[in-house]
């Protein structure tokens, strides 16, 4: 049962909650009690996560090794192209971007969430929280938030060291309002990442085996979110399409904001659209859960 691999660093949603949301139905006086419930879940999850702190630290350090090759690769690409800028990105911005993408993904990636949801539907773990007065999505969210907090806290030191070593790639430092926008975009990246993965996991209500579907989604996501390189490097039409889709908020958008690539009205509009996507996915996840449970209760269980 011990989380085995390095990929499992931020893993994992083992367990699942229920349909009716006490948070939504509770009268105002009980709202604080409900919040306390999920705060407690947060704290217990945090405790669970920190049991494996050795796993954390090693995993975090190892995660940066590929960065060295990435830097060498892009230096070669720029040298080979003979240009100082590619689609408006110079080498320094590019490397800084790729470092920042790690920070964005630290908030938006949800390793194992979709798979965990699908598996608990399939294996019947779903039951255990259907039986208790608890809301599955709120439960999983608290659980994830705890894992993220633990992960970020542990990763802060190695990240700090790495960013310090690479400080030469950051030619300018963002001002206070950019910082604020960056943090806002990261928080919403967490929400979008969470509900998006949750929605994917809910397909488990309809399909018994979702592994290959998840694989396709993850691979595609790596590309369309801008995890590999800034979306601007793509042909303009494709880049324009990808910037309409919600996935850019998982990696590209926060990093570009930090580097000052998106400013003024575009920034304000981007943040609003990000918020809209966050809400859309939250609602979609609820809807899928409701519909899925109806099916589950009728056919399976």
């Amino acid at each position: 049962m011990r989380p085995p691999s390095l990929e499992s660093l931020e893993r994992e949603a083992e367990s699942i909650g229920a349909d009716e949301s006490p948070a939504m139905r509770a009268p105002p006086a009980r709202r604080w009690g409900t919040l306390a419930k999920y705060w407690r879940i947060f704290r217990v999850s945090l405790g669970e996560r920190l049991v494996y702190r050795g796993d954390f630290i090693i995993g975090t350090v190892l995660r940066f090794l590929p960065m060295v090759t990435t830097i060498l690769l892009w230096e070669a690409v720029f040298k080979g192209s003979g240009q100082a800028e590619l689609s408006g990105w110079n080498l320094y911005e590019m490397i800084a971007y790729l470092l920042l993408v790690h920070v964005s993904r630290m908030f938006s990636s949800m390793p194992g969430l979709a798979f965990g949801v699908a598996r608990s539907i399939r294996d019947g773990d779903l039951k255990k929280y259907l039986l208790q007065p608890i809301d599955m999505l709120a439960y999983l969210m608290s659980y994830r938030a705890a894992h993220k907090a633990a992960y970020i806290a542990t990763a802060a030191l190695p990240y700090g060291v790495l960013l310090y070593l690479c400080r030469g790639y950051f030619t300018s430092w963002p001002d206070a309002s950019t910082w604020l926008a960056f943090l806002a975009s990261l928080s919403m990246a967490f929400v979008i990442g969470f509900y998006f993965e949750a929605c994917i996991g809910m397909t488990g209500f309809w399909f018994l085996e979702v592994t290959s579907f998840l694989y396709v989604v993850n691979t595609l996501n790596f590309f369309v979110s801008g995890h590999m390189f800034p979306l601007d490097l793509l042909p303009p039409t494709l880049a324009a399409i990808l910037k309409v889709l919600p996935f850019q908020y998982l990696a590209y958008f926060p990093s570009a904001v930090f580097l000052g690539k998106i400013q003024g009205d575009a920034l304000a509009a981007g943040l609003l659209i990000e918020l809209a996507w966050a809400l859309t996915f939250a609602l979609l996840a609820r809807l899928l859960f409701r519909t899925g449970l109806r099916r589950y209760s009728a056919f399976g269980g």
Partner: protein
Amino acid sequence: MPIIEANDLTKVYRVYQKKDGFLGSLRGLVKREYKEVRAADGVTFTIEPGEMVAFLGPNGAGKTTTLKMLSGLIYPTRGTARVLGHVPSERADAFRRRFALVMGQKNQLWWDLPAADSFQLHREIYSLPAADFARTQGELIEMFGVGALTRQPVRELSLGERMKMELIAALLHRPQLLLLDEPTIGLDVIAQVTIQKCLKEYNAQRGVTMLLTSHYMRDVEALCKRVLVITRGKLVYDGLLAGITEQFGQSKLVKLQFAGETVPPGLEQYGELTKTDGPVADLKVDRHRVAEVLGAVLDRYTVVDMSVQDPPLDQMIARVFEEGNVGHASTVA
């Protein structure tokens, strides 16, 4: 008012029938054939507050399906259930706060954390006042005798200890109804007996209603007077455990010990000779002929010792299962 009212509960599953071989699998991609499986078929019974009832049946008979309908995990295809005054499938919080379902094969505790942390979590999930929670937890820990173990990660506990923790967790919110699915599965005899004792004590103290399934007749004999027997989705017996013997035990076991070293010949005329061991013989006799047979045997042979027994309960239950549909027994509840 009854705590459980099951009325004509029926659940029909659609099961995909995969054809043999690769071609069959391909055909399955396009057009699938389904078979309807009646997991529960017109199950009707009521349970009054404070009762401890056993739910018996072979694997796949519909026990778990019925428990799932009663706990609101699945909707019945037909029929209705009322549990604690609620329709279970609505999964109202008020309903979920008042019962617990414990499955012997599923664990609800957090694997890597001490049980005490999971208990705290339950306190939050059920919004229990701190003082009540502390008292209940203390009582339960004492009753199950696991005081020193609650700070150990659950993964380091033995199966029996873990089951005790599961039961404590399930009882923390003081449910009025406890549904137990194979609570002693995989446990050794000592752990089984401890858990039986605790459940019994808890039932006596708090008047909690319990409905349990088990494959261990020892559990059933220790805990329940009343049993429901289900086979192939149908309820075939609802009554006292002792009544099963009367209704289904058509024969008795007569144990005879004769003087001398061996069993004398000629016993076959009185009944079926099921076992001989030196001078000891087991004779299966029709229950109505027991007196007559004993008289005749005592007249004819020198008998040192004898006893008349019902066949072992699990054998009898197995027969009930095999015979399946033998009609409803309307015995006392």
